C-alpha cells in the first residue's frame, strides 16, 4: 500500500441558529494518492464529523458550485489538490448557512 501522510485541515464552523460566533475545528486527514480538498472534506464527514456542511455534486469540475476558500484564496474544492496543512473557509463568511456553505453558491 502507498505511504500515508497525515495533514491537518482547519475548518471554519458556524451554525447561525446555534452558535454565537464562528469557530475553527482541526481534523487530521490521511493523504493517500492525489487527493482534492473535497476528498479531505468527504473523509472528515464520513469518519470524523458527519455534521460538517459543504457543497458536493459532480466531483469533476462540471457543476462549478463547490467554490470554497483555502488559505484565503477561492478555488473549486474538487479540483484543488491538497499536499500540506490547510485552512478551509466558506466563500463568504458573512453569508454562511452552515460551516463551509455560504448562500451565494
Amino acid at each position, binding site marked *: 500500500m502507498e505511504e500515508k501522510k497525515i495533514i491537518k485541515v482547519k475548518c471554519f464552523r458556524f451554525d447561525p*441558529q446555534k452558535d454565537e460566533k464562528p469557530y475553527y475545528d482541526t481534523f487530521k486527514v490521511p493523504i493517500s494518492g492525489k487527493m*482534492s480538498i473535497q476528498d479531505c472534506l468527504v473523509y472528515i464527514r464520513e469518519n470524523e464529523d458527519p455534521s460538517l456542511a459543504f457543497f*458536493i455534486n459532480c466531483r*469533476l469540475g*462540471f457543476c462549478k458550485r463547490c467554490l470554497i476558500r483555502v488559505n484565503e484564496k477561492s478555488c473549486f474544492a474538487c479540483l484543488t489538490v491538497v499536499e500540506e496543512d490547510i485552512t478551509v473557509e466558506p466563500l463568504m463568511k458573512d453569508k454562511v*448557512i452552515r460551516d463551509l456553505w455560504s448562500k451565494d453558491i
Partner: protein
Amino acid sequence: MGEVEKLCDKVISTDLLIVGSEGAGGHAAIKAHSQGADVLIVTKGKIGQCGASQMAGVDFNVDGKTAKTLGFTGDDRDSPERFFEDLVREGLYLNNQKMVEKYVEYAPKAMKDLMDWGMRIYGYDSVHAEEMARGITSAGTYWVAAIRKKVKELKIPMLEDTMLIDLLIREGRIAGAVALNIKSGETILIKCKAIILATGGWHRAYSFNTGSYDLTGDGIGMAYRAGAELISMEMVQFCPITMVWPPKDRGSIALYVLSCIDPFDKYIQLVNNKGERFMEKYDPINLEKSTKEIVSIASELEVENGRGGLHGGIFFSLKHLRPKFIDAIIRIANNRIKNELKDTRYEFTTLIPELIKKCKTENIEVGNGAHYMGGGIKVNENTETTIPGLFAAGECSGGLWGAVRVASACTEVGVQGIIAGEVAPKYVKKVEQAEINENQVREILDRINKPLMRDEGITPNELTKKMHEISGKKVGLIKEGSLLKEATEELLEIINDDLENLCITSTKSKELNDEWIKAIELENILTCLYLSAKSSLIREESRGEFYRRDYTHTDHDNWLKTIVMKQKNGELDIKFENPVVTKISLPKGKLTYQEAIGVATASLKRE
C-alpha cells in the same frame, strides 16, 4: 387554512410538477410551459449544475437521412427504419418497440429544439460505432446551459436545492407531493394534478460510479412506494476504463472517452499487473476495441484472478509508445480540445493531457464504474406510468433500451422530455385537483423526522458502507446466483431493520444536514439496489449488459420477457411481461453470450 395545510412549513399549488431540472426535466418543463400549462420545477440541485446531464460527453442521435433535413452531412444509406431495426436488434429484443419507434421519430425534434435554444454543436459523427455516422457531438455543459437559458427566459417557476420526498396519492391518482428545502430544512406541501418524474439514475448505490452525488434513485423509490410498476431493474451499465485511482479523479470517464476517439483509440492498451495485454485472451481480433461489455467483463476477470492493481482496477497503458510519440499525442489532443473545439471542461483541458503525460512513466488504474441505469419506472410510449397523473421521463424510466443501451441516452431524455411535456398538460386539463390525504402527509413527515429524533441506532454513513460492501461484491458487473441470493437477503434485512433504526446524532440542525438528506436518500437507493439484485437473481440467462456467470447463454426461448415489479399491500409483486412488439418479431433459440453480443471472444467463464 385547513388542517392539512398546517402540517408542512409551506404550501404551494401548481397543475404540473416536474421533478428534476436537467436533460429530461428541463426539456419537459419548456414543452409543457409552451403548451400553456402551469408548471413548477423542483430540483435537488441548481438547474444546469446537477445530475448526469452536465457530465455527459455528449452525443445525440438522429438517423442519417433525417439528419440532412437539420443541415448535417447525414448519410443516405441510413433511414429511420434502419435506425429502429438496429436499436431493437442490438438491444437484444427486450425493448418496448413502441418506445423505440417514438425514440427514432422524436430524436430529430429533440435535436431541433436544442439547436433552436442555442446549444453549441461540435460536429456530426459516429459515436456509438455504428456502420454509419448517426451522432451529433457537443458537450454536456453546453446542453444543460441551453436548457437553463430557455427555462430562465420563460420564467418557469422553480424550487432549487429542494428534494422531493414522496408522492401523494388519492383514490389511485396523483394529488401532490411533499418536498424538503435542503438549505433551510423547511418542508413543502405541493398540491398538483400531475407529476413528471425526471430524477435520473441511482448511481450512488455503488461506491465506484461515474455519476453525481444527487443520483440516488429518488424518483424510482417514490414511484415504487406509490404503487407504480418498475421494469428491467437488473439492467445496469458499467463503464470500463473509468478512473479508479487517485482519489481526486476517481469516477472520471475521461480515459474511456479518449479510448473511443480516433486517432487515440489506436494507441491505447489495457494491461494487467503483469503487464500483459489481456484483451488478447478475451477478444484477439478486436482487442481493446471490443464491445464495452466484453472489455468490462475481461477487466473484472483479471482483477478477480489476482492480476489487478492495488485499488481493484486494471491498467490503462501507453508504455509501448516512445515518450516523443506520447508528446505528439498530447499535442494532437490539446490542439483538438483547446484550439478546434475550444472546450473548457476540466476533464478535457487539464485532466486528459495530465494523464497522457503521466503515462510516459506509469500506467493508470482504471475499472468498471456504475454508469447508466437501463431499467426504472415502467412507462409506455407516452411516458405514462401505471398511476394516473404520474409520468416519467429520462434515465429514471425503463423499457426503451431492452438489454443494452446502444444509442444516445441524451437523445432518450430529450425525446421523453418532449413527449411528457406534450402529454401531461393534456391530462391536467381533464382532471380536477384531488384532495390531499392528511394521514399520508403525516406519515411521510413522521418517517423522515424519525432519524432526527433517535439518539442511537445505525448512522447513514455506517449504513452506506454496508450497502456499498454488498453492491460492490455481490451485485456488480459479473453476477452469480449464490451471491445475488445473499445480496437480496442481506438487503432485505437492512431495509427491514437498519432503515428503521437510522439515527442522526452529529447535529439535529435541519439546515444543510447532510446526514439527514442521506438518511432520506438511503431508503430510495436501497429500494433500487434490492429490486435490481432480486431481478438479477430471477433472470437466469445473460443478455447484453446483463451477465450471469452461472447462466452464460442468451436464451431467447425462455427469457425474451421483461421483469416487472411493484409494491402491492406492502409486498413485492413480480410478474413477467413480453416485450411490446410492433415490427420485429422475437427470435427463437439459445446463443452463447459472445454470439449474442456479436463478438468473437475467448471463454468468459472463470478460469
